[in-house]
């Protein structure tokens, strides 16, 4: 039984890793086509992606701007939402949080179409700022969830003690709640950041070909076939994800964020 379990877990890991491994290896191809195993291996594609090809360099810059901008915005809006639910627990604040999570829960293509219409009217279609706002809205649910999880872990006795000693809500927020919430806020930020980095379909509709992110650029080049330079983009993105989530695991409690039982350590 034990061996079967190990075998099963190993097989699962293998299947998950397989396409990623193949993409990574293809980046080493010397020629223009994606072959596996790579022919005439070279690292020249990395230079192409980051330095010499403006198409990819610009796309990378756009991806970074949108990811950081939207994650920051999402956290800024998520904080008062999560805080409202935790503080008052009122039906209205729960409805607000529920509505905020709607774009994330429904098929993204429908939200993309809707945002396309919205920016068409509001005049932001094809502008980067509209892309930033769109992603912030799409991934708002993530920081709301991580911050809510964090707020639930705060010992209410500390708050009561502070209040009896005369601390105002603002002081309590600054001295007791905020310091404990740093890892949860950062986790929410990074979840939104990484998902924004990798998001495709919503950006597809709101960019209206006005600019391209890396994922859009890859999809646009899809008709001409995949090239090794695109695989470099894939490697970059995988490395960023692994680093970010490792940081979250290192400085935050990842199993708890994912909803594991607290009593077991």
């Amino acid at each position, binding site marked *: *039984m034990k061996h079967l379990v190990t075998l*099963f*877990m190993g097989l699962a890991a293998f299947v998950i890793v397989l*396409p*990623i491994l*193949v*993409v990574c290896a*293809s980046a080493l191809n010397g020629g223009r086509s994606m*072959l596996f195993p790579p022919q005439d291996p070279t690292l020249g594609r990395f230079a192409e992606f980051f330095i010499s090809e403006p198409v990819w360099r610009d796309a990378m810059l756009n991806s970074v701007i949108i990811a950081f901008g939207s994650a920051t915005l999402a956290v800024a*809006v998520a904080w*008062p*939402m999560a805080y409202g639910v935790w503080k008052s627990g009122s039906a209205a604040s729960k409805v*607000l949080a529920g*509505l905020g999570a*709607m*774009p994330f*829960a*429904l*098929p*993204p*293509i*429908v*939200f993309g*179409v*809707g945002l*396309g*219409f*919205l920016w068409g009217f509001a005049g932001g279609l094809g502008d980067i700022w509209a892309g930033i706002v769109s992603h912030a809205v799409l991934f708002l649910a993530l920081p709301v969830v991580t911050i809510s999880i964090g707020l639930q872990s705060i010992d209410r006795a500390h708050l*009561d003690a502070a*209040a*009896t000693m005369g601390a105002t*809500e603002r002081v309590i927020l600054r001295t007791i709640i905020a310091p404990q919430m740093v890892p949860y806020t950062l986790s929410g930020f990074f979840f939104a950041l*990484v*998902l924004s*980095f*990798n*998001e*495709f*379909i919503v950006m*597809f509709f709101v960019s*209206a070909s006005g600019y391209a992110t890396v*994922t859009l650029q*890859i999809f646009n080049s*899809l008709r001409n076939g*995949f090239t090794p330079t695109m*695989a470099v983009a*894939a490697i970059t*993105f995988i490395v960023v*994800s*692994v680093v970010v*989530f*490792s940081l*979250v*695991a290192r400085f935050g409690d*990842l*199993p708890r964020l*994912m909803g*594991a*039982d607290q009593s077991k*350590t």
Partner: protein
Amino acid sequence: MSSIEADILRDTPDATVPKRGRVRPAQLVLWALVLALCVVPFLLVVVISFGEKVEGAAWVFGFTGENYLRFFVGASWPETSTTLYLNRLYYSVYYAVIASLVAVLTAFPFTYFMTRMSRAAQSRWLVFLLATLSLSEVFIVMGWDILLSNRSGLPMVLREIGVTDWLKGNGGFDLLREWGMANPRDIKFKTSEFATVLTMSYLVWPYAVILLYPALSRLDQSTVEAARTMGAGPWRVVQTVVLPTVRLPLIGTLFLLFVFLLGTYVSVTVFAEPAKQTLAISVYESVRGSTLNAPFGAAQSVILLVTGGLCLWLGQVLVNKQEARA
């Protein structure tokens, strides 16, 4: 602090009045933001689905059911009728159902075993899973595209190790051809339903683990051990102890993945044959692509949403019925 004291504190005028005055405008701004950005886009889709296309690529607001009529019976009804779009809806649902089932059925045992590991090992697995989960659909499609391509992927491997010839000998090859997974000479995966469903279930597999993880990790291990000491075999334990306690999250996960997969775009464009493409593809064609008919695209999006909503509702009814019986 007792609740009476709390009430007294709350009723102290100087503590509450400025606070309330401060909170309200911020609260209003928050509501306005959420309504404008989370709700209005969906409302726009619904409203525009009743609009009319005018010459060129433009459209105007209106109140016509024409777009829906076109979806169900075709534009030139009643002279002729077509089930083209119903067919696309069928494939949207078909791929999503199979892919979410495959993902949940394989992710369930995986998650179960994972939650039995040490906290540190769980953390490592979660990092790995989150990294693959966040990986863009375009990269995943890229990877499977190489793996399944006729030149350098699995078909080549199967040919080289002799599986293709072996299948030709025992008649398995003809079966594959019937399933659209082989051309006259070789096994092929592009384009096929198999490749589409495989990529789609790969896409949501980490989501399935993450969604099942809380329930399985809170599973009381002592009940499992108790059942074991009373002589129940592993399979019987799963059937009588584990499954009943996680039935709800299991069904919930299945439906969430299903709704998510309804809108899959990249996998379907690359791996599904033209006759078996989904509604997501024609939504794109109508809104941004070749046909440019935004109201019709909106109508198709609404139908996609309603389909998802109906399925969720049906799932809820199913769960409630089971709960009532239990």
